[in-house]
């Protein structure tokens, strides 16, 4: 897949793509296996089962989502909880599992990739595709006249919290490098939330 497409895809997820790009991308996503795979990879709301090899993963999620509800939810929660132990409450972990399932159901429509399904894929894509995974404001989209609930990627809140914690933890190690490789002397240390000894 071309770098240009990956770039546009990423821009789309950040709500930075313009309308023409969006239309073109949705057509391309429907038509190109490779691009669809990347879309799914970027769109992290999908992997309801742990222990899958991402490289060879099928996109058929519906069964796996059911399995996730039936079996995986406790271990999923505990795995996340374990990582998040210092910061996250059980409520956060529970919401992670819930959003995984919601995202998975929507993305499962990507699995129907037969040629006769192409139109449906595009129609089904739109609500997922329009969602800005990083910001709070999804672009309005609908199935016909029916409004579609706004989707969030898996563990949106939990991962955001992780990103914040990591900035705190690694910000200084990054600033050390920035101070040596940008023309601003030690000023990059101003970006470190709390300077440590």
């Amino acid at each position, binding site marked *: 897949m071309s770098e240009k497409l*990956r*770039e546009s895809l*990423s*821009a789309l*997820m*950040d709500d930075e793509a313009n309308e023409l790009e969006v239309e073109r991308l949705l057509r391309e996503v429907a038509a190109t296996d490779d691009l669809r795979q*990347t879309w799914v990879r*970027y769109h*992290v709301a*999908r992997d309801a089962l*742990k222990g899958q090899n*991402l490289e060879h993963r099928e996109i058929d999620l519906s069964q796996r989502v059911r399995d996730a509800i039936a079996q995986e939810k406790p271990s*999923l929660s505990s*795995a*996340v909880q*374990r*990582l998040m132990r210092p910061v996250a409450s059980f409520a956060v972990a529970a919401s*992670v*599992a819930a959003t*995984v399932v919601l995202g998975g159901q929507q993305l499962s429509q990507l699995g129907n990739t037969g040629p006769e399904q192409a139109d449906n894929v595009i129609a089904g894509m739109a609500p997922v595709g329009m969602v800005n*995974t*990083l910001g709070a404001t999804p672009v309005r989209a609908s199935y016909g006249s029916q409004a579609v609930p706004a989707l969030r*990627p*898996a*563990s*949106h809140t939990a*991962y*955001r*919290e*992780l*990103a*914040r914690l*990591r*900035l705190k*933890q*690694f*910000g*200084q*190690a*990054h600033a*050390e*490098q*920035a*101070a*040596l*490789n*940008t*023309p*601003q*002397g*030690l*000023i*990059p*240390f*101003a*970006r470190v939330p*709390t*300077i*440590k*000894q």
Partner: protein
Amino acid sequence: MNMPFVALLAGLLLAPAVYAQTDVCRDTDPQAIEWLKKMSQSAHASAYHGVVTFQRGDDLEVMQVSHVADDTGVTESFTRLTGQGAQVLRQQHAPECVHPGQQLLEMGNDLAAGECGIANYYRFELGQGQRIADRESVRLNVMPRDVYRYGYILYLDRETGLLLQATTMDRGNTKLERFAYADITYGPVPKPRENVAVVHEAEHPSQDVQSLPEVDFDWTVAWLPPGFTATQPVSSSDGQRSFTDGLAVFSVFLEPLDVAIAPGEGVVRWGSTTSYTRGMRAGEFPVLITVIGEVPVNTARMVTDAIRRAN
């Protein structure tokens, strides 16, 4: 197929690439590149101290910086005057020690030789300066040629070339952050302030072993945005990699996880700094990747997408 024909064919195929290269060089103002070089050199050579403001959104921080270069090397200090009481010191940074970021900026002569260097990735344009910290300045507009980096508006001291003010802009020309000297004095530098709560000795080459993850397998970043290069050699199992294009730096951190977590991504942005975290697998190993840097989210995501376990 005879040789002259092959040569002709090769010539035809190569021609557009060569043309594009010289085109970029021609499009670049050599004077702007000279100022860029002067800026980089002055940042390492002069002796100065001053007060700098740093603004991100509604947040304003003030700090005091000093810089002195002598035979033993460069000694610098950075002291926060607002918020946390903290100081960063770097003592006797050897004069012959030139880091990749600095090399990328000091390419004045290469331009004449047809090497566009950093001008491949940014368009530079000189403009009307203004008075900053009681100094006359030159304005240098720095516009990215692709989506992988931010743009800058730089004001350089007209006399010394020192960077007096820098504003970082995103693609929509939104100002992400700005630092500016409020006051600057060239010449002998007073002693760094004392009685500061936290004093950090900046390391060189930096290796903050305490907080960095330990990785027991080799990994690589299979794709980098064009123009970015490693800031220092690392072993293939180090938990941190940093990359620079001369103006921006981003760092990739890999943390091995005991148990796979639900794949996902999260981002926080503060000023021009992006912190992007993703749970994923590198080969069979579950890992948590974090990219921290003064680059757009897209760049962080695409770099994360290219992380592989090395065989």
